[in-house]
C-alpha cells in the first residue's frame, strides 16, 4: 500500500479508538437522559469520582487522612467490585437527597441541580482521596502490534471490546426487559409513570447505579490512559457533541456518534489543522455536531418529537 493510504488508515483507526472513549462517557449521559429525562452534567465528575475511589481502594488509602497502608491494598478485581458498590451507594444518596425532591420540575432545573452535584462530588472526591495526579493500572494490556503496516495499541482494542459488550448488554436491558420499559415510561413523564404504578425511586436508583457503573468503566479507561486527575471530569465536555450527534436518547447513537466525532476530529487535526493554526480539537467536534443538527435536529437516532399545541 502507498504510504499516504496507510497513514490515512492509521489516522482513521486512531480516530475510531478515540471515538470509543468518547462513546463510553456519552453512554452514561444517554442512560440517565433516557430513563429520567435529566441531562446529567455530573457524568464526567462521576467518572472522576469512580476512578479516584478505585485508585484509593487499590492503594489502600484511608479516606480523608490520605495515608496508605499496605495491608489495605486490594487486588484490582476486588477494588472494582467495591467501587461499583460505592457507586450504587452514591446513586441511592443522589436519589434520596436530590432527585426525590425535584420530581416533575422543569428539565433546566434538574440540569442545574446536576451541575451543583458535580461541584459537590468534585469537592468530596478531592477531600476524600486527595487532589494529586494518580496512576491507575488494573492490568489492561498495553502493548503495540502491527496490521498491514498500521500501528495499533492493545489498550484501544480492549476499550473497544468493553464498549461493545456494554452497549449490547444495555440495549438488551432497555428493549427487552420489564425494567427497561419502566425506565422509558419514567423518561416520558414522571407523574404519568408514577400514576400507573411504576416505583420512581427504585427506577432512579437503578438507572443512576447503572450509569455510575458506566462512569466507572469510563473512569478506568480514561484514568489508565491519562492518569486520574481533575481534568478527567472535563471529558464530559468531550462527550457532549457526541451526544447531540447521536441523539440524547439513543444508545447506538452514542456509539456511532462517538466514532464519527473521533474520526472527524482526528482527520481535521491532521489534514486541516496545520493550515489554520492547530489545536482545533476543542471545538471541531462541536462544529461537526452543529452541521449534522441542521439536517437532523434530533440527532442521528434521537426520537422524532411530534409537537402539538
Amino acid at each position: 500500500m502507498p504510504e499516504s493510504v496507510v497513514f490515512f488508515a492509521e489516522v482513521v483507526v486512531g480516530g475510531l479508538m478515540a471515538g470509543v472513549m468518547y462513546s463510553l462517557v456519552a453512554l452514561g449521559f444517554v442512560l440517565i437522559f433516557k430513563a429520567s429525562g435529566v441531562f446529567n452534567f455530573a457524568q464526567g465528575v462521576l467518572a472522576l469520582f469512580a476512578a479516584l475511589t478505585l485508585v484509593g481502594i487499590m492503594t489502600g488509602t484511608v479516606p480523608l487522612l490520605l495515608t496508605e497502608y499496605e495491608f489495605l491494598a486490594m487486588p484490582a478485581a476486588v477494588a472494582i467490585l467495591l467501587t461499583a458498590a460505592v457507586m450504587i451507594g452514591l446513586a441511592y444518596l443522589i436519589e434520596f437527597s436530590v432527585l426525590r425532591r425535584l420530581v416533575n420540575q422543569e428539565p433546566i432545573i434538574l440540569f442545574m441541580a446536576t451541575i451543583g452535584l458535580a461541584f459537590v462530588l468534585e469537592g468530596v472526591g478531592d477531600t476524600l482521596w486527595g487532589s494529586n495526579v494518580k496512576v491507575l493500572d488494573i492490568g489492561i494490556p498495553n502493548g503495540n502490534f502491527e496490521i498491514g503496516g498500521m500501528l495499533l495499541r492493545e489498550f484501544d482494542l480492549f476499550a473497544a471490546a468493553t464498549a461493545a459488550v456494554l452497549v449490547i448488554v444495555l440495549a438488551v436491558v432497555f428493549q427487552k426487559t420489564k425494567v427497561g420499559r419502566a425506565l422509558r415510561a419514567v423518561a416520558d413523564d414522571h407523574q404519568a409513570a408514577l400514576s400507573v404504578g411504576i416505583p420512581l425511586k427504585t427506577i432512579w436508583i437503578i438507572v443512576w447505579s447503572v450509569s455510575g457503573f458506566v462512569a466507572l468503566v469510563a473512569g478506568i479507561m480514561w484514568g489508565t490512559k491519562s492518569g486520574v486527575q481533575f481534568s478527567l471530569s472535563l471529558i464530559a465536555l468531550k462527550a457532549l457533541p457526541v451526544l447531540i450527534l447521536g441523539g440524547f436518547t439513543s444508545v447506538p447513537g452514542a456509539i456511532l456518534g462517538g466514532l464519527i466525532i473521533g474520526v472527524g476530529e482526528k482527520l481535521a487535526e491532521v489534514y486541516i489543522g496545520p493550515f489554520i493554526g492547530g489545536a482545533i480539537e476543542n471545538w471541531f467536534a462541536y462544529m461537526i455536531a452543529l452541521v449534522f443538527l441542521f439536517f437532523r435536529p434530533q440527532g442521528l437516532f434521537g426520537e422524532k418529537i411530534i409537537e402539538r399545541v
Partner: protein
Amino acid sequence: MLYREAGQFKNSYGKDQAIFPIRQDRVVAIVFILLALALPAVLHDDYWYNAILIPFLVFSLAALGLNILTGYAGQISLGTGGFMAVGAYACYKLTTAFPELNIIVVFLTSGLFAAAVGVVFGLPSLRIKGFYLAVATLAAQFFLIWLFNRVPWFYNNQPSGTIQSPPREMFGVQVIGAAAAPEFRYLIALVIVVIIALATKNLVRGRIGRSWMAIRDMDIAAEIIGIRPLQTKLVAFAISSYVVGVAGAMYFAVHLGAAETIAFDINLSFRVLFMVILGGLGSILGSFMGAAFIVLLPILLTNLFVGGLGTAPATAKHVEFIVFGSLIIFFLIVEPGGLARLWQIGKEKLRLWPFPY
C-alpha cells in the same frame, strides 16, 4: 400597610405604562440608584470596590443579558463566556485603534460586535431546541476562545497574549486602566448597568418581550398566532449578546484590567447561568440578586473557612466546592423560581401585613 397600591389610580395611559407602576417600587428604585451613586463619597475601601461592588455590577449585567435569552426567550445558552470575550476583545481593539473615542461609546459599540456574533450562533436555534441548542452554543464558546487565542491580531500581537485595559479619561479623571481609582471605575460601571437595566426592563414588557415569552412558553402556539419564530429568536440572541458583550467589555476593562482568553472559559458561562437560575428565570431583579449571591458566596465562604476557622486554603477550596454545590441544590429544591420568586412572595405577604390573608 407599607406596601399597598390601594388609592393609586392610573388615570392616564402614561401612568398605566410606567416602568414601575406602584409608587413604593418607584421610590425604592430611585432611592437605591441614588444611594449607589452616592456611595463613592463615603466608601473608600479598595477591597470593597474591586472584590465585591464592581464584579457584582459586571456580573449583574452579564446575567441580565443571559436572562433575556434564557429566561425570557427560553433558549438555553452555554456560550456566555464566548460572547463576553467578543465584547472584551472588541473593546480592546476599538479603544486601541481609536484612543480619543469616549470610553462609554467604546463599551456600547463593542456590544454590537457581540450581537453580530450572537446572531450567527443563534441561527441554529430555529432548528434545534432545548438541550441540543445548549450544547450547540458550546460550539460558540470553544470556537471563539480558540479564535482569540490563535489570531494575534486580536491582542495586537502582544507577546504575552494578554489584553490590557489602556488608560482612558472622562471629565479629566482616569476611569479605566491600571491607575484609575476604583471609585470612578465603579461609577462608570454603575451608570452603564443602570441604563441598560432600565432599557431592558422597558423592552421585556413591550411587544418584543411579549413575543419572546410566547416563544418560550410554546413556540408552535406562538407561531400559529403570528409570531415569527426566526426573527423573534434572532432578536433575542442579538439583544442578549449585546448586553452580554457590553458586560464582557466591562469585565475586561473595568473589573480585571488585563485579561487572557482563560478568563472567558466555560466556567464563566456556567457562573452566569447559575446567577440567572438562582436569581430567577425571566426576572430583571432576579439577575441582580443572582449575581449578588454568586459573587458574595465564595467570598463569604473563604472568609469563613480561611479567616474564621483557620482551615488550610487547599482544603478550604474543596469544602467551598461542596458547600457551593450543596447550596445550589438546596436553593433549587426549596425555590426553583429563584430568589426573585422569594422576593415576590415576600411582597405579597407585605401587601396583606399585618393580616395573614
